[in-house]
C-alpha cells in the first residue's frame, strides 16, 4: 500500500515512533516507488534548506542591546514591575534619542535664563535621559547600534570618545544639521547639554558636527583630535599620535 507524503515526511523528520520507523523501513525495502518518493522529498527538503540559507543575514546585536539589558536588570522577580525600563527597551534607540533631543531643547532654553527654576529640573531630566541611552554609569559596557544627537549650547558642542584605541576608527564630518550627531554600532552613550560622551566604543564611530556651531571639539581618550571653528573642520596635531584612526570626511 502506497504511503502518503505526510507519512514519508514524518519518517524523514523523525516524527515516527520506533515501531513505525521499523515498519516504514520494511515498506521502503519492498516498495521502490515509495523509496523514490522519499528521495524526492529528501531532495526537496535539502533544496528548501539551501534556498532559505541564501536569505540569511548576520543577526544584529549579538550582545544584548543596552536598553534591553537595562530592562532585564531592573526587572525584579517576578519580572512584572519594571514598566518604565521595559518601555524604554520597547521604544528602542530612536525614540529615546528623540526624547533626549526634546529635553535638550528645553535645556538650552533653561540655561539661557539665569536663575531659571527650570534649570535644575532640566538638568536632572537631561541626566536621566543620558542614563537611559547609555545605561547606568556603574553598569557594564553595553554594545549596540545606536545614535544620539545634541544641540550646541551657546554654539558650542563637545564629543568625547573613549574606547580600546586600536579598535577605534572615528570619522568626523560637518553637516547642515543644527545638532551634533554621533552613531556607533558598539558603544555606550551619555548625553548632557552641549556634550556627548561615547564610552567603550569599538569599530567605527561617526561624528557629525553642525556647521553652524561656533566651536565644536572631538576628543578621543581625553585628547583633542578635531576642531570645527567658523565652519572649518581640522584635525589637531595630536590626532596622529594615538592608535585610534581619525578621519575627516570631505565636505559634500
Amino acid at each position, binding site marked *: 500500500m502506497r504511503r*502518503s*507524503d*505526510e*507519512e*514519508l*515526511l*514524518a*519518517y*524523514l*523528520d*523523525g*516524527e*515516527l*515512533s520506533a515501531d513505525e*520507523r521499523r515498519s516504514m523501513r520494511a515498506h521502503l525495502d519492498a516498495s521502490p516507488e515509495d523509496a523514490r518518493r522519499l*528521495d524526492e*522529498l*529528501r*531532495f*526537496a*527538503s*535539502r*533544496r*528548501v*534548506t*539551501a*534556498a*532559505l540559507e*541564501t*536569505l*540569511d*543575514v548576520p*543577526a*544584529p*546585536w*549579538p550582545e*544584548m*542591546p543596552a536598553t*534591553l539589558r537595562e*530592562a*532585564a536588570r531592573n*526587572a525584579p*522577580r*517576578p*519580572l*512584572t514591575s*519594571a514598566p518604565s525600563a*521595559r518601555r524604554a*527597551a*520597547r521604544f*528602542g534607540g530612536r525614540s529615546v534619542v528623540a526624547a533626549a533631543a526634546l529635553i535638550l531643547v528645553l535645556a538650552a532654553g533653561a540655561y539661557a535664563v539665569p536663575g531659571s527654576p527650570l534649570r535644575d529640573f532640566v538638568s536632572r531630566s537631561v541626566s536621566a535621559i543620558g542614563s537611559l541611552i547609555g545605561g547606568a554609569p556603574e553598569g557594564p559596557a553595553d554594545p549596540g547600534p545606536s545614535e544620539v544627537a545634541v544641540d550646541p549650547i551657546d554654539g558650542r558642542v563637545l564629543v568625547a570618545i573613549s574606547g580600546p584605541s586600536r579598535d577605534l576608527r572615528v570619522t568626523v564630518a560637518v553637516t547642515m544639521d543644527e545638532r551634533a550627531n554621533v552613531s556607533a554600532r558598539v558603544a555606550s552613550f551619555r548625553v548632557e547639554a552641549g556634550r556627548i560622551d561615547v564610552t567603550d566604543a569599538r569599530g567605527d564611530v561617526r561624528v557629525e558636527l553642525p556647521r553652524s556651531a561656533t566651536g565644536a571639539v572631538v576628543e578621543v581618550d581625553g585628547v583633542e583630535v578635531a576642531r570645527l571653528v567658523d565652519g572649518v573642520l581640522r584635525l589637531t596635531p595630536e590626532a596622529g599620535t594615538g592608535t585610534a584612526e581619525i578621519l575627516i570626511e570631505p565636505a559634500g
Partner: protein
Amino acid sequence: MDFDAAYHSHHPALYRYVHRLVGDPDLAADVVQESFVRLLDHPLPDDEVRRWLFTVATNLVRDDARMRTRRQRLLAERYERSDLSPDAAEEPDRTAVRSERIAAARVALDALSERDRQMLLMREEGFRYAEIAEAIDVAPGSVGTLLARALRRFAGALDPAFRTYEKEEAEHGSDEGGNPVDSDANAERS
C-alpha cells in the same frame, strides 16, 4: 530562567526565523527585541523559552498590520528586482547568480500562505510537529500534511534559479547511486 542566557541561546535562531518570515532586517530586529521584552514579563522554565519566543514572534508578525503593509511593499520591490533580463540571468557572474537565487527563494517563500510559510520555517529551525501545531495554532494531526504540501510547493517554485546549485550538489555531493547525499539522520531525530 536566566534572561542573559536565554538571549544568547535563542537570539540568533529567532532572528533568522523572523528575518526569513518578514524579509526585512530592521523589522526582524524590532520583532525579536519586542519578543525578548515580553519574555521579561513571562519567566518560564528553560525548556519552554524557545517555543514561547517563536510563538510570540510569529504572533507579532501575524497581528501587526504595519508589518503586513511593509511586507507587501518589500514583496513588490522584490518582484521588480527579480525580473531579470535573459542576458542578466545567464550572466555567469557569481554575484548575479546569488542575487537570482535570493530573489527566487524570497518569491517562492512569499508565494506560500502565511501559515505554510511559518510552518516551513519552524520546521527548518528543528521544531517538532507538536510544537509547530501549538505555535501556529493548527491541529497537530494536520501538520505533516500541510508541511509536505508546503515543502513540495516551495521546492518546486525554486526552479530554475537553483538548477546550478543542484548540478553542483550532484557533482560534489552525490552518493554512488547518484542520489543526493542525505543520511537517515533526520529519521533518527527522535
